[in-house]
């Protein structure tokens, strides 16, 4: 079976899905005075094009930070500038200072959608294609199936092309993916450079930085700190430093600039959670009103500690025994919604990955419904599920071996010899999870919430997703910690 025609076809299918989803409405359409994130992106093009660099992050009469001020690192700003140049060529009205606020037209919508598609095509999609081609020990057919399923992941498509909130996620994820690819294939310098670019594009990538750091540190330690390892450490440090310098160059002239940018990137004044994000805090808040009990700073500190602690076991293991596989699984333990790295293990544990990705898309349900994206969501989720069900054996009975839980089960069975029913438990959990997701979706769409609890459904969605994510966190940590050192027939890159 020839690879390149099929890979092209897969990419074309992915592009078609993305563009057709983008034909729907976006967040904040026709809603003055603030409009939505679409307006934010347009505003950033206006700011970066019309004002000098020094004023981008500062409050001034020309740049009102309350009205969608820039709050992403410099690379996003440069990207907006590039888009602004193109916009100026097509129609200067789109980015005219002050007068273009709230500009909405069919042509402009097309332009914005096109920029997202092109950015996607240049960063994320090549990374996915290359990643699938580099997978070893699987047939061409499976590689292409893998690429198709990853490109059809509904979460990314819906956020970047439908909801239009925080668009260009695919760019930062693409860079991160290049980083993961580089680091797993032993091109450490290129990998870390790519990851630094991702970091400088969206600060959310900080979540991924700890596993990166631990993995690379582990590699250096393995090579011996006295010899090659130290050299590697030095080279990596230089690469990271150089890439940061390059990105932040215009802002390094004054100290105040750097601080202001950092203040914009990490607004510690904001609370712990907004808009019922599916994380632990939202769920705990149902029972224990954290928002009221603790002050902002303590909330932030606690959340940071917990995030750090949740990563700790995996990262420790990663530092001591660096392996590409452990690295990938550590990335999965992070409870962030657009957890694209889960796609990377689709061919290893198709069942769990598909489940996880479905849950992650489900957790965004309230957001998607608010933007009128029910039809695209349902369709993309169904196509993703169909693709996975066709190419991977997720509808069959699963065994411990396939769940990668064999070593864990063996260890448990040393103490509890009757512990053989793990796959069945997991299957029941899967069933109940899917049923609850479908039910909640139906209820949210058809019923009205009771008057006393207007936010009932979003909160329930958040709660169910969170329970699922907790389960996955435990599962992925088990895999990492029980990953045996003895050579397995696992399908890894290296």
């Amino acid at each position, binding site marked *: 079976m020839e690879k390149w025609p099929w890979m092209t076809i897969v990419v074309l299918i992915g592009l078609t899905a993305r563009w057709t989803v983008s034909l729907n409405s976006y967040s904040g359409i026709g809603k003055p005075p603030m409009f939505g994130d679409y307006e934010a992106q347009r505003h950033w093009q206006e700011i970066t094009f019309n004002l000098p660099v020094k004023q981008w992050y500062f409050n001034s009469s020309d740049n009102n930070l309350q009205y969608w001020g820039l709050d992403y690192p410099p690379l996003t700003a440069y990207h907006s500038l590039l888009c602004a140049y193109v916009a100026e060529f097509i129609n200067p009205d789109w980015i005219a200072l002050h007068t273009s606020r709230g500009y909405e037209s069919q042509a402009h919508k097309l332009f914005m959608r096109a920029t997202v598609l092109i950015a996607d095509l240049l960063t994320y999609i090549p990374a996915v294609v290359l990643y699938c081609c580099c997978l070893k020990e699987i047939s061409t057919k499976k590689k292409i199936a893998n690429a198709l399923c990853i490109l059809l992941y509904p979460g990314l498509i819906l956020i970047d092309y439908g909801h239009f909130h925080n668009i260009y996620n695919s760019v930062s994820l693409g860079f991160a993916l290049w980083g993961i690819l580089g680091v797993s294939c032993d091109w450490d310098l290129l990998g870390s450079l790519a990851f630094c670019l991702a970091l400088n594009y969206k600060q959310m990538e900080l979540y991924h930085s700890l596993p990166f750091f631990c993995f690379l540190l582990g590699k250096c330690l393995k090579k011996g700190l006295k010899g090659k390892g130290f050299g590697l450490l030095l080279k990596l440090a230089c690469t990271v430093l150089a890439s940061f310098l390059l990105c932040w160059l215009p802002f390094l002239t004054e100290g105040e600039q750097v601080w202001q940018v950092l203040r914009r990137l990490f607004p510690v004044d904001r609370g712990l959670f907004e808009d019922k994000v599916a994380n632990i805090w939202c769920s705990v808040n149902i029972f224990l009103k954290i928002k009221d009990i603790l002050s902002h700073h303590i909330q932030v500190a606690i959340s940071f500690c917990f995030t750090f602690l949740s990563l700790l076991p995996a990262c420790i293991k990663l530092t001591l025994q660096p392996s590409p596989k452990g690295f990938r699984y550590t990335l999965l333990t992070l409870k962030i919604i657009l957890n694209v790295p889960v796609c990377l293990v689709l061919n290893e544990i198709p069942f769990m990955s598909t489940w996880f990705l479905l849950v992650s898309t489900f957790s965004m349900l309230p957001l998607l419904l608010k933007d009128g994206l029910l039809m695209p969501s349902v369709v993309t989720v169904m196509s993703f599920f169909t693709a996975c069900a066709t190419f991977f054996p997720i509808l*069959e009975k699963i065994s411990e071996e396939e769940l990668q839980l064999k070593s864990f089960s063996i260890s448990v069975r040393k103490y509890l010899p009757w512990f053989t029913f793990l796959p069945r438990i997991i299957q029941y959990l899967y069933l109940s999870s899917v049923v609850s997701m479908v039910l909640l979706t139906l209820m949210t769409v058809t019923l009205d919430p009771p008057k006393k609890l207007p936010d009932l459904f979003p909160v329930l969605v958040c709660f169910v997703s969170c329970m699922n994510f907790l389960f996955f966190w435990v599962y992925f940590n088990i895999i990492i910690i029980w990953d045996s050192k003895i050579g397995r027939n696992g399908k890894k890159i290296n």
Partner: protein
Amino acid sequence: MAALGVAAAGLSWFSALAIGVTLLKCLLIPTYHSTDFEVHRNWLAITHTLPISQWYYEATSEWTLDYPPFFAWFEYVLSHAAKYFDQEMLNVHNLNYSSPRTLLFQRLSVIFTDALFVYAVHECCKCIDGKKTSKELTEKPKFILSVLLLWNFGLLIVDRILDILYAVFLLTLKRHMEGAFLFAVLLHFKHIYLYVAPAYGIYLLRSYCFTASKPDGAVRWSSFSLVRVISLGLIVVLVSALSLGPFIALNQLPQVLSRLFPFKRGLCHAYWAPNFWALYNAVDKVLSVVGLELKLLDPNQLPRASMTSGLVQQFQHAVLPSVTPLATLFCTLVAILPSVFCLWFKPQGPRGFLRCLVLCALSSFMFGWHVHEKAILLAILPMSLLSVEKAGDASIFLILTTTGHYSLFPLLFTAPELPIKILLMLLFTIYSISSLKTLFRKEKPLFNWMETFYLLGLGPLEVCCEFIFPLTSWKVKFPFLPLLLTSVYCALGIAYAWLRLYVSVVTGCLVSKTKKQ
């Protein structure tokens, strides 16, 4: 878990393909809808609110009912479902009414009727026997044919309801009586299938009414079965009676016929279908321009209305003789005669019939009056069946289908749909070329250099017409130029495919005749 599993080992590939294309169509719901949308809305309104006697007289909207009665009944049935979506669309006076729910209803009705199409494709694929069965699923003719039919680019972007019946009819090739019944029904749904009626009629007559042939394939007159002829005739008459009966009773038959065959419309549609007359028009235009330059023609004598103004009217040619409906009929008949003769003298079973069918459809497309470019799909679909069996047919199919699909581009002319049509066209073209090349890799290459060059030329043509032309000054002076170029370029390709197919059919027929002698 067993409750969730579809069929033990995951989803079968056919279901996956069918589900995939249905989901794609759902995603295409918010895209631009052509005037067909208003046409169908109008027909839903007419059939729902007016009595039968008014159906073919109603003329509030310009899109009058011009399909046979069965289609009108189909719209009537649909209209009862439509009233739950949006009552307003059923008001005859609500011209150009469109609401999101109306759009949803129209698109959903297409998607539902496509379920029948999926079934038909499934049955078609059962008929294909893979002689060279390779282990790889994607190289099996069944798989390739399913994809070529289900994911056909033309069917995706053209809102056609009821090509499904066509596919269903195709699969009754071996079952003659049912086929005759289905074809009669089909004819009364869309009279466009008259194009292929001669082929089907001759095929039935030859293969069914003559129960046996001589060993060398010639006609055995003694085996003529009157019973079969009469039974076929009865079927056709019954179906026609069912369809046209009410209108004959109301003495409305002439009106119905005049609506069905509107010869007042011009030789060509607003956008010239890429057939022989497009080339004829182009040559005429060139000659008139040359003539004016060389002062051979008097500008005052030239007819006013130009064919390139993009309107649907009757007009006349400047230099070459004007074309009348009768002339086109004559040309069409002359064009289909050789293939029908071959079918009569040397019927080669269903394969030979399919070839003749494609030739009839193509000849009618080439020489018909007021042909719409969608009619090319009539030839492309049966050609798909032939393409997975022989390399020569595959080559002709690829030229025909690529050119035919490209000629559909002007139907979707809005900016948001531009990436969609390019992506889907690339998808289908890349798949069809690579899969057929793989299937026939042991034989000689599918294209020679000239054909490759021609097909590759479609890319630059598209870039010029859609991207470069709007930025030039010619856009104001010659707005029709891109359409003209597309039409002429595709007409060359389609004519070439038609000639090649003809040559292959006729030589096949003659070869066996000479062998006999």
